[in-house]
């Protein structure tokens, strides 16, 4: 403040400029090195940004171990792993999609969500890169990542949604065999209620677990092809969808869910999985990952008390009880990913490495030949049902573009809360589909 006026002014502006430049450099270093080595020499030094959603054991250490193995073999590659919890990941990826700047490898379930990411120029086409390994993978598992003859992702898991149930509770309630039809299912729920047991644990706050019920009921009524046709025609207001809603309402009217289910998350100590793991409810409709999450969130193991049955048949429906709804995790590759990213994904799904993932009990094999790593009898049941499935439907909230999938989740959540009628749900989903 001693010099004449113009000097300090320059110094002032200079300081501002320097500050901005400094920040600018900070920005470049974090995103710059990805784009630099895109499509370049596979032996050049490169860093892979990897986002996965296995943020807890048992899978968290497996991914870490595989990454360490890979980088040990490829000294030019560095892998930065960011594990993000499922819900947070889904929320985060929406802004990533909008920003158009993706990590090099990121979790996906395929379907319409991935398709939108591809259309937004976020994810790379992998058809040629994966040609060499495609035949080693189970074809149902690849389907969600493939359309118009092109492949956009690598699955590491394929499974399905079904009822995980507590045999001890079923026995207490006098239920001798898992229900095979919706009517029997409702009866079982009544018996459980009568025995003072909470029949079903549901993560109403997370919304997506609720949509499994509506999807399965719709698929049992329409058949898998009917459901696919409805999606193609953008018509979800046929009588079958309304009937599916009514069936769900029959269940809701029995008040089968745990206390506070409307706000319950899935994977927290108060959530659906923990309630199940703590033995506080008799069943949950979940995917192949359910037992692992139960253990992780409740700190307890139901052990031999836990078993599995397929979603029951619905009287008069066109669908078979062997039609399955499910899917599995996969990875998409960001548009600016370095060449090693694809190589690393291939490495992840070699039969040997799949066995390591499968051995955790939270992933079912996508690679042919890794089936022998399934140790758990119930997981074998699930894998069996998948391999024998007569029709396959990906989870609707992944199969449909986000604007439709989220409407399905949201409307069904409201149906379960009694805030929407079956007709309202059909109308809302149809409108969303036609607006998409």
């Amino acid at each position, binding site marked *: *403040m001693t010099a004449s006026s113009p000097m300090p002014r320059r110094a002032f502006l200079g300081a501002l400029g320097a500050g901005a430049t400094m920040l600018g450099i900070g920005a470049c270093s974090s995103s710059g090195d990805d784009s630099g080595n895109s499509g370049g020499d596979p032996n050049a030094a490169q860093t892979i940004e990897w986002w996965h959603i296995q943020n807890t054991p048992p899978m968290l250490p497996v991914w870490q171990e595989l990454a360490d193995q890979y980088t040990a073999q490829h000294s030019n590659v560095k892998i930065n792993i960011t594990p993000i919890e499922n819900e947070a990941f889904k929320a985060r990826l929406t802004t990533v999609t909008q920003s*158009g*700047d993706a990590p090099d490898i990121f979790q996906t379930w395929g379907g319409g969500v991935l398709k939108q990411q591809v259309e937004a120029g976020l994810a790379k086409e992998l058809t040629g890169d994966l040609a060499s390994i495609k035949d080693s993978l189970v074809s149902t598992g690849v389907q969600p990542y493939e359309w118009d003859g092109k492949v956009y992702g690598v699955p590491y898991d394929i499974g399905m949604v079904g009822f995980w149930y507590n045999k001890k509770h079923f026995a207490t309630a006098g239920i001798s065999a898992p229900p095979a039809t919706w009517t029997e299912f409702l009866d079982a729920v009544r018996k459980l209620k009568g025995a003072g047991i909470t029949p079903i644990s549901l993560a109403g706050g997370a919304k997506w677990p609720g949509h499994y019920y509506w999807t399965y009921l719709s698929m049992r009524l329409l058949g898998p092809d009917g459901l696919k046709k409805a999606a193609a025609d953008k018509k979800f207001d046929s009588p079958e969808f309304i009937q599916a809603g009514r069936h769900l309402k029959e269940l809701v009217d029995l008040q089968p869910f745990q206390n506070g289910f409307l706000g319950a998350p899935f994977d*927290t100590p108060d959530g659906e999985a923990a309630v199940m793991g703590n033995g506080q409810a008799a069943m949950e409709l979940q995917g192949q990952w359910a037992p692992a999450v139960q253990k992780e*969130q409740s700190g307890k193991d139901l052990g031999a008390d836990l078993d599995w049955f397929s979603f029951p048949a619905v009287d008069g429906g066109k669908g078979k009880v062997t039609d399955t709804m499910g899917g599995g995790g996969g990875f998409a590759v960001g548009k600016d990913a370095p060449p090693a990213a694809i190589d690393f994904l291939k490495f992840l799904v070699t039969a040997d490495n799949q066995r390591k993932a499968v051995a955790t009990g939270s992933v079912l094999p996508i690679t042919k030949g890794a089936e022998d790593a399934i140790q758990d009898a119930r997981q074998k049941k699930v894998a069996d049902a998948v391999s024998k499935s007569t029709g396959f439907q990906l989870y609707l909230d992944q199969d449909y573009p986000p604007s439709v999938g989220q409407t399905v989740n949201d409307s069904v959540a409201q149906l379960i809360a009694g805030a929407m009628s079956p007709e309202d749900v059909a109308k809302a989903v149809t409108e969303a589909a036609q607006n998409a």
Partner: protein
Amino acid sequence: MKALPSGPVRPGGTRAVARNTVLYLIVLVVGLFVVVPIGYGVLGGFKNNGQLSNNPFGLPDPWIFSNYTDILGSVTFWRPLWNSTVIALATTLLCVGVAAMAGFIFARFAFRGRELLFMLFTVGLMFPFAVAILPLFVLLREFGLLNNPLGVVLPQAAFGLPVTIIILRSFFRAIPSEIEEAATMDGCTPFGFFWRILLPMARPALATVSVLAIVTSWNNFMLPLVVFNDPTQWTIPVAVSQFNSQYSQDTAKVLAYVVLAMVPALALYAVAERQLVGGLASGATKG
């Protein structure tokens, strides 16, 4: 905030004592209302999850330090802290610098359209930040400022301008014109007056608006949430919310993280309470 003795308090007398006791009790209850959740967090961080379930109130038994020490030894805490600091300082520097220049013009120059322009800035106070987030995101994408600290710094500085300009302008106005005249006599240019006389005199006001800008930037969640996808760029609020879902099964650890994340803001408050409270009060009531 010099407290003036006020209120009709008659000295002595049992009624006065009884009355004061009642008042004191009320204040204590309100104090508990404020303190208990924070205390629960602080103590909870020293427990494990079993203790949290069985003994949410009592002192930890045994005291478990690993929650805090693990976090303090981890980059997941220090990196967002650094990011928040850099962004808060850059925002403040930019916002206060630009606002001071504008405030100087608004305070000490007369020209046609001045009040209209000034109005324009004050209207900015009515834009809640949330209103602009979606189009702002689209704009920042066009400018290529996503995943870039400037994508947070520039909008924060822009949204901080109205209140900063208003406070600084009223302060600049209060500086007697004799000083300006004297400076002009001595051959001072407008910039010389601004830089060498006005700004040094305005130090208290600059401190006030700086603290306001720092706190606002420090606590901003929405903008860094959508601008930064890369976890290495996350600021404290984003990191807290991510940590919360990441370790949702470990309540004690999340509590420890939340408590540690409070410390910088509370420390700043302890140091700059006068500027902060004064700034808010004057910002809200200066007419």
